[in-house]
């Protein structure tokens, strides 16, 4: 078989890299969803399944890293392609962390399921929906190269921070009322923190998408710019 044209191999490898990132993203989105379901429905089996699935996320993380190294070493990419690879390297780390957060939520859910419920979950699922939709939109922005969508994600981060603060005060009130509630309230606080971190990672991804498409760095600018 004659060797394929170099550019075509290169192009294909870039496509595969993108597909791997998106596959990982899809998996992580589902992990968060399932983690929250296991918490709200007190479903320990599901929580264990989520924890067991985390290694797939880790495997994909390593695979993306390897693809990036290979592309960098063999093809010396420049410009847009280089930015895609740089973005992939960072996004995969973010996604891997989000996967870990989902795993952590499940661990807390397993612990919480051992005890009677503290209160019906209202704010946490809402916050999870918010964080998940941010993650989903940041990945949508990645696949569509849609900088406007990415920017919207960056601008939504504040709302999650505010919800975290609300939950914090609510939990504090629970703990003051009843010392018995401290261990559960602390775990719920942890979960709120994980969700807030997920939203932060989604924001990071969105910022990297803007870098990938426009070559412009908007990280660590607060508030995020109104347009790019």
């Amino acid at each position, binding site marked *: 078989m004659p060797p394929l044209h170099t550019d075509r191999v290169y192009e*294909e490898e870039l496509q595969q890299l*993108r597909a791997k990132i*998106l596959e990982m*993203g*899809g*998996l992580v989105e*589902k992990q968060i969803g399932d983690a929250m379901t296991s918490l709200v429905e007190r479903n320990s089996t599901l929580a264990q399944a989520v924890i067991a699935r985390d290694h797939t996320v880790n495997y994909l993380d390593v695979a993306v890293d390897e693809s990036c190294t290979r592309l960098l070493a063999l093809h010396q990419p420049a410009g847009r392609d280089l930015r895609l690879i740089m973005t992939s390297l960072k996004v995969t780390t973010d996604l891997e962390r989000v996967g870990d957060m989902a795993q952590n939520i499940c661990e807390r859910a397993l612990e919480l399921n051992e005890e009677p419920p503290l209160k019906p979950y209202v704010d946490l699922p809402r916050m999870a929906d918010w964080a998940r939709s941010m993650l989903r939109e940041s*990945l949508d922005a990645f*696949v*569509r190269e849609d900088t406007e969508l990415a920017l919207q994600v960056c601008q939504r981060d504040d709302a999650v921070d505010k919800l975290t603060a609300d939950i914090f005060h609510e939990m504090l009130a629970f703990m003051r009322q009843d010392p018995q509630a401290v261990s559960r309230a602390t775990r719920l606080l942890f979960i709120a923190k994980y969700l807030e971190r997920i939203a932060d990672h989604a924001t990071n991804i969105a910022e990297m998408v803007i870098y990938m498409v426009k070559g412009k760095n908007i990280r660590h600018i607060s508030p995020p710019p109104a347009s790019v």
Partner: protein
Amino acid sequence: MPWRNSVFFPIVLLPLLAVAGMVGLLVFYSFPLTPRPHLLWYGSLLLGVGAIIGAIIVGKHLRFRLHELAMFLATTSEREQAPSLPVWNEDEVGALERGLQQVMVRHHERLRALVAERKKLEAVLQSMAEGVVVIDPAGHVILCNPAAQELFGLRPSQEWEGKPIQAFSRHPLLQELLREVANRRPGDAPVSRELQLENTEGRYLAASAMQICEDGVTVSGYVLVFYDLTQIKRLESVRVDFVANVSHELRTPLTAIKGYAETLLNGAVKDPATAQRFLEIIDRHSERLSRLIDDLLTLSNLELGRTELRKEDVVLADVVTEVFEIMKDKADQGGIALVHHCSPELPSLIGDSDRLQQVFVNLVDNAIKYTPAGGTVTVTAKLVRSSEFGVRSSEETGDWIPGTSSLSSQAPSEGLEITVTDTGCGIPAEELPRLTQRFYRVDKARSRELGGTGLGLAIVKHIVQAHHGLLRIESQLRQGTTVRIFLPL
């Protein structure tokens, strides 16, 4: 082809004749012949000059025809219809012209057929309820229909062609499906999966994927077809929930009755005080059980359309007064004021007064249950047109439960709008659409404690529907709930 029709004839013969003329002239001057044959001299000259002129004319004509041919070829592919090409002469060029003309006509016919075919296909794809996405082997979208975009909740304006399939959904099961279909051999049965999308709508989809393979060997892409299962899943869950709920609701009083009866049998009957108390409990629970079964029967009859409505003139004010009399004790116990603003002057309705009374008993009973002491339950009625009732529906956010789906499309008719308003705890907005489902309770523990069967609003909905009315529930948390009913006159 006859000899004289060939283009070979002028092209070869005319120069030959010219050469012959030249040779004649050469002979004439080379040999000093006496006497000089003038005929030869003039004849040769005429032949030579004539042949040259003829050659020029023929050449020009040929050039003109070839030019026409070139122009024809250049323009014909851009036009809708093949332009006609005149055939000047039945020679070789003529055959070429005729042949090309035919080819072009056929080409255009085929093109038209293709376009028509494509349009047909597009129309089919556009009007399909199933989402169809075609991707190339690398996973890029080649084609997708509007239904697919809608199912995935995508903006229809955006161009999706060329984007990776992951722009539609990154669901792990979809990835798995694609991987599996890629491993299949051409011609194998399609692979399918059921998945719930991760986006806000959370639709259930059945996805099936198949290879596109024109020559039986190379795969040129995949066709993905998505069916929306959301509705089916919802109905399924309603059915399952209903069975579970009925069993649960029936079991609760039954367990109590059985427990106390057993205790009585085991000797408690000998102690009159205890026996009295236990029997009271048994009585209360059998009361509840029979109420539940009554409600279930009413509901099932209403749903099956078995209940005949007695058609009679109903004065609403009388119905409400009667309902208030029934509910008075309960309201007084809870410290709740009952107020009604129903003028007896309002035109009377045609309907079943017993059923309507049941509607208001259920609604007022609900209102009293969820209103803290010191609150008020108000019933008002006024004359409106159905269109006015309808117009407001688009502005406000509550859930409309149309009694008859055709009513909104009919000419506006007059009717009574009746509202039952309380100052109770209110209902979260996300619960509003499910309120009229059988056994649906916002706060499960509390509702049962207050003696509800979970069927009240379902019955209200069905009676209102049977009267061709509309029902709508609005609520503000901690402010109160308003149930609006529109009943046509």
